[in-house]
């Protein structure tokens, strides 16, 4: 994707070695982050996040559906990511599909927790309306508008912001429906319930270049990576998911070290995002 000459590659690698990256950042520093919520009024919740030149939109739509027969007490959540050719001509046609799938799967893994629902950022049981009959289906869509590295972290943060922007209509279930009958529902268009997002983890990707790892890599830096580990971490400091990219193998002790570094960084990131999200919400209310 990004073609770099040998001299530039060495410059980037050398900068990471000396803890002074091409744009002057230290290894553990993020680019400026800005968040805007409510960008898609037709959705139940939405947000746009910009990290440097990377820009993504996330939207949350809630629809009533039937719970899965195997898990009658839970709602359903689906996460999809699309890479718009607007961001990169390479994503034209089916060109973005591979990356989209990779990002979707990684987000799913990072946000949805284990099969039993433990560690999930979204509490599926809170989505149930009538057990075994009606539940909310949450569709979370990410769209990459401009890409300059660190897409996964940006998408994770955008989804977190979109979820805190999400209002789910209050639903009244008519009593009396019995047996297999689908009960009547009354969806309120005035009363909305705020979604609880305190449990939604953040994703921190550590990109390993040479002997060191960096956060928030630009696409130029990503082209120099040997491998990258994306860790999703909850506010409590628990690991909620992890995936590794890049071909090079890693020593297990390095992985442990990366996880603890990621945990440390996640604390700052969570605080940063929280303040940005509440500022964005305040801005939106003003309008």
């Amino acid at each position, binding site marked *: 994707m990004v073609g770099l000459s040998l001299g530039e590659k060495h410059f980037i690698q050398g900068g990471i070695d000396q803890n002074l990256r091409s744009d002057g950042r230290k290894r553990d520093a993020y680019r400026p982050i800005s968040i805007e919520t409510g960008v898609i009024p037709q959705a139940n919740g939405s947000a746009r996040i910009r990290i440097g030149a990377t820009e993504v939109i996330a939207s949350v739509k809630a629809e009533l559906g039937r719970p899965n027969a195997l898990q009658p*007490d839970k709602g359903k959540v689906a996460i999809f990511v699309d890479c718009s050719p607007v961001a990169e001509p390479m994503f034209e046609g089916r060109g973005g599909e*591979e990356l989209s*799938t*990779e990002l979707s*799967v990684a987000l799913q*893994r990072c946000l*949805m*927790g*284990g*099969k*039993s*629902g*433990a*560690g*999930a950022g979204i*509490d599926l*049981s*809170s*989505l*149930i*309306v*009538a*057990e075994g009959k009606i539940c909310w289906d949450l569709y979370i869509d990410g769209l990459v508008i401009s890409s300059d590295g660190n897409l996964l972290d940006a998408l994770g943060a955008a989804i977190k912001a979109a979820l805190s922007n999400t209002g*789910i209509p*209050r*639903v009244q279930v008519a009593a009396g429906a019995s047996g297999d009958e689908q009960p009547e529902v009354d969806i309120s268009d005035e009363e909305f*319930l*705020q*979604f*609880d997002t*305190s*449990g939604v983890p953040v994703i921190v990707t550590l990109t390993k270049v040479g002997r060191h790892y960096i956060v928030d890599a630009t696409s130029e830096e990503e082209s120099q990576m040997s491998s990258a*580990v994306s860790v999703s971490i*909850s506010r409590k400091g*628990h*690991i*909620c*998911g*992890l*995936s*590794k*990219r890049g*071909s*090079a*193998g*890693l*020593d*297990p002790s390095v*992985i*442990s070290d990366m*996880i*603890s570094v990621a*945990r440390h960084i996640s604390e700052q990131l969570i605080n940063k995002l929280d303040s940005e999200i509440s500022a964005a919400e305040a801005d939106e209310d003003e309008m």
Partner: protein
Amino acid sequence: MTSKGGAAPSTYTPAPPPTYKAQRPPFFTDSDADWTRSDGRGFHQCRSAFFRTGAVNSAAGSAYAEFGNTKVIVSVFGPRESKKAMMYSDKGRLNCNVSYTTFATTVHGQGSDNKEFSTMLHKALEGAVMLETFPKTTVDVFALVLESGGSDLPVVISCASLALADAGIMMYDLVAGVSVSCLGRNLIIDPILEEESFQDGSLMITCMPSHYEVTQLTITGEWSTANLNEAMQLCLDACSKLAKIMRSCLEEAASASKD
């Protein structure tokens, strides 16, 4: 422990918080320390592994693996010339595909929700294969899960590395894959399908044991540091044991062909 995942947020509760105890599978409760696995294994005991190379005659290399009920066959074709449409590359390409037979699962067609397995297989192998030894060409790795009995992906990965070795593709090391499930407080290795469906979290490591390098690592669910480190250690130990079995399978095949 009951608070884990079960605690409904205070702000959004359209339904009364479900009681989790009742929902737990009958064969397992958090407090039940004496719980035994349905196949009688210990928590840290893997299923017995069976490997055989040369399962498909027409392929350049192939392997069959059986871990309990999980049965997998992998065939490797190539290296053959890359398609014209691909850009020039001085490295070889690895093309991986994982598919399920229609009868692999009890519910018809359920194996199809494992679309990402192909990319995961690719990622796990690419670090081990010496791609620079076959420039401009592609090696195809086709894995077929005959029966899905849990821990499918790690079995596929181990089996695929064996098939690559059988095809004579140069590798730095064999890749062995093992997964661990977390159920409540317990860590169980090499979970079967039933255990996987109730797991709170899972961790899969694929590694090159003699290099002591991890090629792929995925974690789902919530993990504390202590649990995580224990699980990783368990996996790594199991991987090196598994690699020994794989190695002996290859040696056997080699000596058999000599005779």
